[in-house]
Structure formats: structure tokens, C-alpha cells
């Protein structure tokens, strides 16, 4: 190689170093947070940075499984991550989380029931609550006849009335769909009995001809535009749709409503544990919780935060679970491997 080529190579290397360097350097006053997109209020982060002098770097993920796969492989050193309920249980079981005893944090006293002692972490050793929500049925009232009312039942989704046939949207989230079907058929969603799964499969196959789309993206937009008249959806999306069109309503089926909760955890690989604790404590403050809810459109778990919520959040039918429906909320538990196999087989058969 000639001198010129060497010089060129060296300068390219130097430039590369400048561009790629810096990412790995660890400083004392920083914090790496791993969350869903648009699930962390920028104002809250700003406030936290101002109060503590800790600089926050936010990265995003798209599913619990992705988060888990990534943390399992190692190498990704996040200080705070936000898995949903059953995934907290799985991560504890797999020894992926750092025990930091959320109850010892000063703001934990603000946490309301039942979020202070959930089944997946009853002692709150490894996790602290963030946002929670439900998976139910959103629909457009404009499709109803005068005086017609829908039952609060999964029947409306699985065996739809005539005007909703062919206009149904289902989440393409296997866990949510199977749990809903299991609720409707009054079957334990963790069943290992093939006959139970056969029943679920039949229900979903029969429903399939009425389903226009299986999708988890843009469910709010499909409902508002009238493209879909009834959607199996997360309540946050139903809330956003309702904000656009007050004809959008949300059903809490009597057989059971899936209730999920996202949690702040400290992965084992975290490097800034003290900062992570400060952050988690800060997020459980009334003000931060209210600001986060206002930004995300999901409910928080902090007593006293409701006074600071925006008006539309306080009035939304999708966010405020009517008191009489409170006992309908149930979480999706982690099931056995055998049960999951059967579940996956049913899902693949339905969408083959």
C-alpha cells in the first residue's frame, strides 16, 4: 500500500472513532431508560433532570418479548426498563432483575391498591408500578339502530350482530386474543386440555369470516375513520378515538376484561442503580404520575394524581373503569409450556 492509501485509511479510522466513540463511556450522573415510544413524558424527564442533575437517555422497544430477548442476551445495559405484568414474573423467574425493594422508596406510599401487591411481585421486591390499562372492545355507536344497546359481553365481538359482521378488527396479539376467547367460553386460558383449545379454535375460526383485519397498529384511526366498526383494542387507543369522536364507546365484558400493568424494573445488568432508584421514586410522585398520564392517555397508580389529570382523561369512558365493573378486571397469567404450545398451534391454524 502506498503512503497516500495509509494516510487515507488512518484519517477514515480517526473519523470513524469520532463518530462512533462516546457511546460506551460511563458517567456518574446518567441514566439509561428503556421504554415504549411516546410512553415517557418529555416534560417529566426534563423535570427529573433539573431536580437531580442526572441526564436521561431514552431508548424504545416494541414488545415485551423483544425486551426480554434483548436483556437475556446481555450487552444492553439499561438502568430502568418497563415490562408488563406477566413478563415481570418471567424475568424474576429467570433471575434477570435486581431486587431493590420498591416499598422502601419514599413515594411508594402513594401507590393505590391493588398495584401495591400484584400477583407477579407480591412484595414489590423487583418492580414498581407505572401505567395500567385494559384490553376490551371499542365500537362506533353510529352503527347502532335507535335505542339499540350492546351488551357488555365478548359475545358482541365473537358472534357479532349483523351490522358489525365483516367490520370487526382484532388485535394481532396472541395473548390478548386467546384470553378474550377463554373468558367468553369460560375456560382457563392456561388450560392444557386439547378439547378446551379445540373449542377456542372453533370459536376463532367461526369469528374469522367476520373479521376484516387483525392488527395492533392504528386501531384508533381505523375506528374513527369508520373503516372498522368494532375493534378489540387497548383502552388508550379507545380513549384517543373517543377524543376525536364521542360516538366511540368502550365495552367492559362481564366475562372478564384483560387488565395489564407496566412496571419499572432494574435489570441485573444496570450500571447506575442509585440513579435508577431515584428515577423510579420520582415517577411515583403525584405530579410525575399525572403528567405521564396526561401524556400517554393511560391510568397511573398514584393516589392524589387524579386532581392534576386533564379533563378529557377524567371523563373518558375508556380510561375510567365504572366502579361496578371493577371486579371484571383480570390479568393474563404466564402459562405452562404445554399450554403455550397448544395456544400457538391454535393461533397459527386460525391465521394459516
Amino acid at each position, binding site marked *: 500500500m502506498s503512503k497516500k492509501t495509509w494516510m487515507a485509511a488512518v484519517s477514515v479510522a480517526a473519523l*470513524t472513532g469520532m*463518530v*462512533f466513540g462516546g*457511546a*460506551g463511556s460511563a458517567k456518574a450522573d446518567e441514566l*439509561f431508560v*428503556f421504554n*415504549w*415510544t*411516546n*410512553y415517557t413524558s*418529555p416534560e417529566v424527564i426534563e423535570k427529573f433532570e433539573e431536580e437531580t442533575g442526572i441526564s436521561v*437517555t*431514552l*431508548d*424504545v*422497544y*416494541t414488545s415485551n418479548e*423483544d425486551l426480554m*430477548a*434483548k436483556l437475556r*442476551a*446481555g*450487552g*444492553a*445495559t*439499561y438502568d430502568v426498563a418497563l415490562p408488563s405484568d406477566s413478563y415481570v414474573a418471567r424475568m424474576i423467574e429467570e433471575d434477570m432483575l435486581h431486587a431493590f425493594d420498591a416499598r422502601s422508596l419514599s413515594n411508594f406510599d402513594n401507590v393505590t391498591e391493588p398495584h401495591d401487591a400484584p400477583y407477579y411481585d407480591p412484595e414489590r421486591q423487583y418492580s414498581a408500578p407505572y401505567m395500567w390499562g385494559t384490553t376490551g372492545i371499542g365500537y362506533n355507536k353510529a352503527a347502532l339502530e335507535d335505542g339499540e344497546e350492546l351488551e357488555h359481553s365478548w359475545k358482541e365481538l365473537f358472534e357479532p350482530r349483523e351490522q358489525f359482521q365483516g367490520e370487526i378488527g382484532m388485535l394481532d396479539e396472541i395473548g390478548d386474543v386467546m384470553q378474550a376467547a377463554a373468558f367468553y367460553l369460560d375456560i382457563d386460558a392456561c388450560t392444557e386440555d386439547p378439547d378446551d383449545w379445540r373449542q377456542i379454535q372453533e370459536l376463532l375460526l367461526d369469528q374469522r369470516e367476520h373479521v376484516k383485519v387483525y392488527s*395492533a*397498529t*392504528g386501531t*384508533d*384511526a381505523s375506528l*374513527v*375513520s369508520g373503516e372498522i366498526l368494532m375493534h378489540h383494542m*387497548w383502552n*388508550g*387507543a379507545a380513549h*384517543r*378515538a373517543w*377524543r*376525536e369522536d364521542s360516538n366511540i364507546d368502550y365495552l367492559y365484558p362481564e366475562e372478564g376484561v384483560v387488565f395489564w400493568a407496566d412496571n419499572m424494573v432494574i435489570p441485573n445488568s444496570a450500571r447506575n442503580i442509585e440513579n435508577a432508584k431515584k428515577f423510579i421514586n420520582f415517577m411515583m410522585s403525584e405530579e410525575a404520575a399525572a403528567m405521564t398520564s396526561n401524556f*400517554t*392517555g393511560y391510568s397511573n397508580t398514584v393516589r392524589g394524581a387524579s386532581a392534576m389529570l386533564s379533563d378529557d382523561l377524567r371523563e373518558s369512558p375508556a380510561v375510567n373503569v365504572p366502579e361496578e365493573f371493577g371486579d371484571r378486571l383480570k390479568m393474563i397469567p404466564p402459562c405452562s409450556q404445554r399450554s403455550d404450545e397448544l395456544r400457538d398451534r391454535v393461533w397459527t391454524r386460525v391465521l394459516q
Partner: protein
Amino acid sequence: MANRTAAPKPVSLKRFPGLATGAAFFFVYLYLPILFVVFLSFNENRIATIWTGFTFDWYPLVLGNADVLRAAQNSLIVATFASVIATMAATLAALAMTQGRAMRRQEVVNGSLALPLLIPEIVTAVATLIFFVAIGMPLGLLTITAAHTVFCIPFAYLPIRARLEGMDPSLREAAFDLYANERQAFFRVTLPLLWPGILSGLLLAFIVSLDNFVITFFVSGPGSTTLPVYIYGMIRTGVTPEVNAVSALLLLVSLVLVTVALLLSRRET
């Protein structure tokens, strides 16, 4: 047929009826959705796909959002490095595979170079992540760039090879006969002839890298989120016109870069 004898190139070429119409149709097909994307970036509604009124607000919001800007910047850095490195490697490989004698095991080499195409992204993603962690490489822009370079190679290699195939080898031979050395022959003869292939390969590699989501997500480390990862993360919280505004800004950047490149190349010639 009437003006056949007039026949400088352009005249006879107009003889394919409907070709211009076909091309026009092609560009409409290409740009119609894009116009929609840009149009919706001016939508005042938080739900990107529901038009309620005109606003310019998303642009200042994007330009003030450090996370989005960092993600966009990361995307551009990775795409630039990965596509350039992949194109250089692919050019050399294409030269090896098409100049001179045919090799034994040519198919094996061709197959290996196309391998990144054949493996579904998620499998490559998990495999590469485990590999990087196993060799102790810290996750970040460097690992993303390395992983992108791999799957960019076939996208650069195939157009360049297609260009080289059937190219008249006597030109390079002639250069040697005129006592050009290997380098001179490459820079004065092969490279100019190869240029359309290289440009095609580079552009394809660039857009493939810019759009990649799954592999990027897995091999990225703290602080190295790219734009696609940011956008896919919106699934639970709703897609806002913010991403349309980012898209429109990226289109603007691409237009500026292309214009500058064209002006520069014109000045040279």
C-alpha cells in the same frame, strides 16, 4: 419507421410506444403515497391518518425533540457508513467474480454473498446479538453498522455484478497493453464503466440500511436507537403525525443532498 435513416440514437429509441406512459405511471405509483405522507405531516390531529385541519406545529416539535433527532442522526450515520463499506467490498468482490477466468466453486461464493438475503431478519438479529455479546463487543453504533454492512452487501453486489457481466473485457486488456498498471486500469477504465452499477448498489444499500428495524433493535445499545426503532415503538401509543414530519424532513435532506451531488457532478463535467 419513417425516420429510420435519420437515426441518431434518441430518434429510434422513441419507437417503443407507451414506454413514456409506462414510466409516468411508474413514477406516479412511486410518489403518490409519498405525497400523502408529506401532506399528513401538516395534520393537526394527533392521530396521523385522520385529517382535521392544517398545522405547522409538528415540525418545531420534531426539531425540539432530542430523542427523535438523535435517532434520525444515528440512522443517517449508520446508513452512510454501512452502505459505503458494503459497496466497496461488493465492488471488489464483483470484480473478482467477473474479470478473468471463471473460478471453481463460483456458485459457493455467489451463494455466500447472497446469504444475508436468505435468512429472515429476526433470526439474523438474535444470532448476531448473541455473537456480539459472546465476543464482548459493546453494543452501539459500531455493532449496528457491522450488522448493517453484512445485509447491505448483497444489495450492492448484485447490481454491480449485473453491470460487470458481459462487459467487454478487451477495454481493460487494452489499458494493460498501454502499460497501465492495475490501479490505473481500475480508476481510468473499469471504475468509469462500472459507475452506474456502483451508484445503483450504493443507493439500494443505503435505503435498505435506513429502513432496517429488527436487526437494528437487537444489536443496538443504550443511546443508539435509530429512527425505525423509534417509529415501531409507537405501536401501543399510537402513530402521530410526528413521524410524517420526520419523514418529510428526511425527504428534504435527501433532495438537498441529491441536488448538491448533481450540481457538483455537472460542474466536473
